[in-house]
C-alpha cells in the first residue's frame, strides 16, 4: 500500500504500478469528445441508475438547460450546456457547447494524497475510488481536489464521486456512462489507446477548420501528472467550468513542511528569548 510513501512523481504512465501493484492490468480511462456530445444526459442517468446515486434535488436553476449545475456527491457525471447569444463568423446567432464532465482520476490525485483514513485508494486500473465504509467524512478531500469533484453527501456524511464503475471494470464491462452514450462522446478504454485516438481526432478537426478544438487533461506533464479522464474541448477549459491549469498541491508538501518547521523553530526561539533578561519582570 501507499500509506507509508511520499508521492513519487514518476512519468505518470502507470500510477497503479507506482502504488505497488505487481503486474496490474493496463491503465483504463475515459476520453470525452465534447465535439460530438448532443447533451442528452444519458450518461448522467445511466450513472445514477447503475451506482444507485440518490437524486440531488429537482430544482429549476434558470441559468440554462443545465439543471445539474456541476459535479457533486450525487452527480458523478455532469453535462454542461454553454448557451450563448453570439454572432459567429458563419452567421449563426447562437452557439451551444455541451460537455460531459466527470472525476478526472488524476495520476497524482490530491484527494487520495490527503485522505487520512485510506478510504480513497488507487485501483489496479489506475483509477481513484472511495470506500464508503472506511471514509470518516473528515472532508479533507473536498477542498484538496483542484477540479472541485469530490463532495460530502449530507445524508450519510461520507465522500462520494465517480468510481469509473470499478465494479463493472472488475468483470470486464465498460462504465455505465460510456455504455449509455449514444454518440460515443464518452469513450472508455486503455488510456494509451485513448490518447492516440484523441490526438488523431484533434488533427482531423483542425484539418476540417475547427481550430478551437483542444485536448484537456491529456498531458502527463501537467500539474496533476495527466488525467485518467481527459477531454476534447471546443473552447478554453474555464468556459466549461474547468480550471485552466490545475496542480496537485501535494507537490509542494515538502516545502510546506519546511516552512512550518522554520516557523516552529522561530516560535521556540522567541519564547526562549522572552525569558531572557533575568527576572526583571
Amino acid at each position, binding site marked *: 500500500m501507499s500509506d507509508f510513501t511520499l508521492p513519487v512523481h514518476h512519468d505518470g504512465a502507470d500510477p497503479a504500478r507506482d502504488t505497488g501493484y505487481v503486474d496490474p492490468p493496463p491503465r483504463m480511462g475515459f476520453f470525452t469528445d465534447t465535439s460530438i456530445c448532443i447533451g442528452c444526459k444519458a450518461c448522467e442517468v445511466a450513472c445514477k441508475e447503475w451506482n444507485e446515486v440518490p437524486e440531488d434535488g429537482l430544482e429549476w436553476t434558470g441559468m440554462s438547460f443545465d439543471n445539474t449545475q456541476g459535479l457533486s456527491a450525487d452527480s458523478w457525471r455532469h453535462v454542461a450546456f454553454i448557451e450563448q447569444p453570439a*454572432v459567429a463568423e458563419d452567421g449563426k446567432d447562437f452557439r451551444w457547447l455541451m460537455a460531459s464532465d466527470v472525476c478526472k482520476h488524476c495520476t497524482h490525485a490530491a484527494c487520495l494524497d490527503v485522505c487520512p483514513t485510506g478510504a480513497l485508494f488507487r485501483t489496479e486500473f489506475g483509477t481513484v475510488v472511495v470506500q464508503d465504509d472506511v471514509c470518516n467524512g*473528515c472532508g479533507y478531500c473536498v477542498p484538496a*481536489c483542484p477540479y472541485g469533484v469530490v463532495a460530502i453527501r449530507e445524508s450519510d456524511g461520507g465522500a462520494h464521486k465517480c468510481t469509473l464503475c470499478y465494479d463493472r471494470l472488475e468483470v470486464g464491462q465498460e462504465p455505465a456512462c460510456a455504455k449509455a452514450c449514444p454518440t460515443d462522446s464518452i469513450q472508455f478504454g486503455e488510456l494509451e489507446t485513448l490518447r492516440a485516438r484523441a490526438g488523431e481526432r484533434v488533427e482531423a478537426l483542425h484539418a476540417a477548420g475547427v481550430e478551437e478544438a483542444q485536448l484537456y487533461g491529456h498531458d502527463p506533464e501537467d500539474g496533476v501528472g495527466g488525467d485518467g479522464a481527459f477531454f476534447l474541448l471546443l473552447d478554453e477549459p474555464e468556459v466549461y*467550468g474547468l480550471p485552466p491549469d490545475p496542480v496537485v*498541491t501535494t507537490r509542494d508538501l515538502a516545502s510546506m513542511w519546511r*516552512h512550518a518547521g522554520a516557523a516552529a523553530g522561530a*516560535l521556540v526561539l522567541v519564547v526562549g528569548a522572552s525569558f531572557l533578561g533575568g527576572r526583571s519582570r
Partner: protein
Amino acid sequence: MAPRGRGGGRAGPRGRRVVPRRAVPVSPRRRREPEFISYYGRPILNEPVWAATDIAGYFFLGGMAGASSLLAAGAELTDRPALARASKVGALGAISLSLVALVHDLGRPARFLNMLRVFKPTSPMSVGVWVLGAYAPAAGIAAASDLTGIARPAGRAAAAGAAALGPVVASYTSVLMCNTAIPAWHEGYREMPFVFVASAASAAAGLALVAVPCDQAGPARTLAVAGAVGELAASHRLTSRLGLVADTYDTGRAGTLIKAAKVMTAAGAVLGATAGRRTRPASMVAGAALLAASACTRFGIFAAGVASARDPKYVVAPQRERRASATPAA
C-alpha cells in the same frame, strides 16, 4: 428556447462582430472584468465543508495550547510557578476543547479513532492526528500533576514532552490548510506557518496576561509584543505576495475579521507592555484583546479561503497568468 440575452453573454462592442469564444456567460457584476471567463459564474472548486466554528476554532485552540506548553516550560525553568500552572492548565483546556471541536466536525468519536488506522505522511491531517495523540496526554499529565502535586517527576517529564511537541501542534495546522486547492490558502503556504505560530504566541501570551499576576507575566508580555510584530509582518508579506487573491483577505467577512485582528493584536501588545506591567486589570484587558485577536485571525483566514473557492475568478485568473508566463508567447 434558451433565454436569449439573459443568463450571460457579454455583449461585444457595438456594431462589431462577436466571435463565439468571446461571448461567454458571465454574471452581470463581472461585466467589468474582461479578462475573466467562467461557466455561468459557478464555482470551480468545492468549498470546504468544514464548519468555521469547529475548524477555525480548532486551529485557534490548538495554537494556543501548543504555544502555552512552551511558555509553561520556560516558566518552570525560570521558577515562575503561577505562569507555569496557568499555561499548563490553559494548554490542557484548549487542546481538550479543540479535540471536541474536531470530533464535533466529524460527527462522532469513532471517526476520530478511524484515523488512527493508518499513518500517511502525504496527509497533514493524518500526521496531525498522531501528533495530537502524543501531545494531548502529555499536556494532560503535566497539568494534572501541577494541580494535584502528585507524581512530580512524571509531571515534569510530561511538561517537557508537551513543550517539545507544542511548536508542532501550533504549526502543522497551517500545512493542513495550505495543502488544498483553495487559492487563498495554498498560494500563501510560505507565510501561513509564520502567521499561525505568531497568532499562537499571541494567544498563549494573552491567556497568561489574563490569568497570571503581573510580577510573573513578564515573559508573556515580551512574547505578546514579539507575536504581534511577527503576525503583522507575516500577514503583510502574505497579502502583498498573493496578487489578485489577496482581495479575499481584504474584503467581506474575512476583511472585517482580519482588520479587527490587526487592531486588537497591536492594541493588546502595547497595552500589555505598558500599563499591563503595573496593574492587573490592564493586563487582563490586554490579554483578552490578544485572545480575541488570535481567534479573529483564524476565522478571517478561514473566511478568505471560502471566498476564494466561491468565486471562480480566483481560480481562473491566477492559473491563466501562470500558464501565460510558463509558455512564452510566440
